[in-house]
């Protein structure tokens, strides 16, 4: 067992220090060390998108990022979206649009959508599908997810 190192980063707006083995992924740290279990593990090798978080504003697959790489970084997880007891527009749009069924992929989709809408405030359907193609959903057939992202773009605008 390798020695643990101290990592300092900003997680959901709070400066946070955690101890981490070099082999631990950011996802493992978030879930097991920091108890932020909103980010989900679907494949643990970067193919399903359920663990998507924002790292310095960019979407990353937290199962492919090492915990130690979070040193000095700003991490945002699904737990950061709702503020002061209010859901974020993207969360509200997903609920109103019935864009989830089992809900396991939802946190990843929400974070990927947040990044997408920051880059493309008025995305085309193709933009949405292209940028969310890294996130697998097995329940919805994607129709209602894509429509909810469209609704969110309109609402925010």
């Amino acid at each position, binding site marked *: *067992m390798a020695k643990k190192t101290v990592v300092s980063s900003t997680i959901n707006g709070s400066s946070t220090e955690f101890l981490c*083995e070099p*082999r631990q992924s950011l996802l493992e740290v978030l*879930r*097991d060390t920091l*108890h*932020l*279990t*909103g*980010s*989900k*593990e*679907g*494949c*643990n*090798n*970067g*193919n*399903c998108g*359920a663990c998507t978080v924002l790292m310095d504003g960019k979407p990353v697959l937290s199962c492919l990022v090492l915990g130690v790489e979070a040193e000095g970084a700003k991490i945002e*997880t*699904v*737990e950061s*979206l*709702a503020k002061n007891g209010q*859901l974020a527009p993207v*969360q509200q749009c*997903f*609920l109103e*649009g*019935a864009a*989830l*069924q*089992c*809900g*396991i*992929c*939802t*946190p990843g989709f*929400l974070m990927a959508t947040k990044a997408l809408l920051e880059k493309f405030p008025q995305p085309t*359907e193709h933009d*949405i*599908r*292209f940028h*969310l*193609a*890294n*996130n*697998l*959903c*097995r*329940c*919805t*057939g*994607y*129709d*209602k*997810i*894509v*429509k909810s992202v469209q609704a969110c773009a309109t609402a925010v605008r």
Partner: protein
Amino acid sequence: MEDLYLGKTNYKVIGQRPIRHDGADKVTGKAIYTADLQLPNMAHGKLIRSPHAHAKIKRIDVSQALAVPGVLAVVTADDFPDLAEKIAMMGEAGAVNLQHLAGNCLAKDKVLYKGHAVAAVAAINTHVAEEAAKKIVVEYEPLPSVTWVLDAMKPDAPILHDDLRTDELGQKGDKPTNVSVHIAFEQGNPAEGFKQAEIIVEREFRTASVHQGYIEPHAAVAMWNEDGRLKIWTATQGSFTCRQQTAELLQIPVSQVLVVPCEIGGGFGGKIAVYLEPVAALLSRKCGRPVKMTMQRAEVFEGTGPTPGSYMRVKLGAKKDGTLVAGEAWLAYDCGAFPGGMIGPGSMCVFSCYDIPHARVDGYDVLNNKPKVQAYRAPGSTQAAFATEQVIDELALQLKLDPIEIRLKNAAKEGTRRVDGPVYPRIGFIETLEAARNSEHWKSPLTGKNRGRGIASGFWFNIGGASSCSASVMEDGTVSLIEGSTDIGGTRTSIAMQLAETLGITSDDVRPQVADTDSVGYTFLTGGSRVTFATGLAAYKLGLDLQAQMRDRAARLWKCSVDEVQVEDGTYSYKDQKLTFKELAAKLAQSALEPVVGRSSVNPEGSTNGFATHIADVEVDPETGKVTILRYTAIQDAGKAIHPSYVEGQMQGGAVQGIGWAMNEEYFFDKNDQMRNASFLDYRMPTCLDVPMIETIIVEVPNPGHPFGVRGVGEAPIVPPPAAMANAIQRATGIRFTDLPMSPPKVWKALQK
């Protein structure tokens, strides 16, 4: 059931689209799935799995693993109690031999597929458990293996179970075999029927093993306490069936097992059988701590249930006007390493959409060196429809008939007898075909090179089964609803809405909760398109119970007889006194009257029937063989759509899963029968870039067996897509594809001929 039928259509709650009750939990990351659990002093378990597709286990040495610092316990198949030939009923998965179920959790004597679990380790954390698992020494004697269903049926095939004998139409065979069952259904006189035919089409079809592909890997936490009580938190489609399987495998009374269902990240039939729960329990008993086990994605592919791969031959005879006169189907489905696959429902479904006076179906359940197959959304029906719906399409082409017209001409309707016996009550198949014909999609022209439009239909049962609910009325007039059906896709809401409608309150005034197995009456699993139907029926009866009690309390408040209290749309009145449900609840809370607590349990017998028809427009790229879906419409009879958004969601999700079967998904085995694509990268499920919007048309032909006319909708939408896609590709290319998946290399090769 007639007396339950409300017969009204001006619903206040049903047909609305309220936000689901568990919605905020799910979009904020607060919902608790099994892998999210952290218990005090919890240990972590890890399985080691067979590297061989078929081998004898000669020796297992766990000593080096036990010596790793941080390791707490190791278990093998020897830790299971001896299980005499015992059978447990597991819903869609059918009757399960417990020795086989235990043998699938941990292999005994032989491994039967690559990825078969052999032993498990518990340690202080996952990493230590993984390191220790690698130090378990298993000595194997590799045996020849077989994965293709027809090869496994050959007399000289490697035999998986030496003691297995074919059940040949009820007669046991006398020699070892991989064919566990041969079933047959017949009506009329097929030989005579084919003599009447003016045209006969016969084709062969093959389908690959396909996985349910839920995004949440299997996970379970077990805590076997010193008082003998076993508590399990798990991702399961049926907490009660999980309790039963676990208790029987461990040979302890069900009353000693408590199953707490966590949120479940998809199932589609694949989370009915237990894999981890009994193993985590054995580890927990050994180390005295709660033990969490979670699978990695490769373990999910290699060690949990795909749907059968199949070989099918379907022959149909018709008159020149397209009237079907005779049919014959020969189906061989693999069941993987243990008997009990999906051939039963496959054989029941192969001709279930049509009225065929003379027909015969032969079905074979065949063992091979793949993981044990499990239910997967309308298990067995998608394969069968891939065959039948293409033969129908071929008949339409040869007879120059419209593909909807030929289906309408032969469509099953009320009174049609299925080949396997049952006579249909009121069903809505014709209505789905008419809706398809009248759809914008069908009426719009499709032009352009390499493009084609295909149509196909599909059938699935809605099974009944036991469901229980209970509820109490709170002083603010809301109702807490406790149910036993685990919620995979939003059924808390569809159940709560049925209770709300019955009581005349809003959906938001019902607080639904899925409870553990000690807190609610027995409820059969979440599967078979049964929850909104059967648990919904229980919620309706619960509503009647609560209403009767509220009426009784009102009568006692007003000092009149119960008969004098009128109830309409949730308002209780007597003479000039009038109280809404909420007002009455508030008054009761301040009174000395008993609280209102209700309960119901149902066990509707038999099944109702769901039909779907899908239309697909495709474009085939002749240079790459890639098939692009230009437009897709799913049409289905929902009986009555309780929450239309989630009915549409089921239709869209089922359609895209079926499109996955059609286009890309398959278990790819190498010459050593090792799966070579056990990751989401290589096992290509559709992404949102692979599919267009899925248009939906909900048809509502009420189910006479349910007060609101509900038919379950979860499964039928996966049945038509592969055939619809094949029929569309045929129109685009002139080539009929009879093997799934129709992946780019296969399509490209066919186009080169």
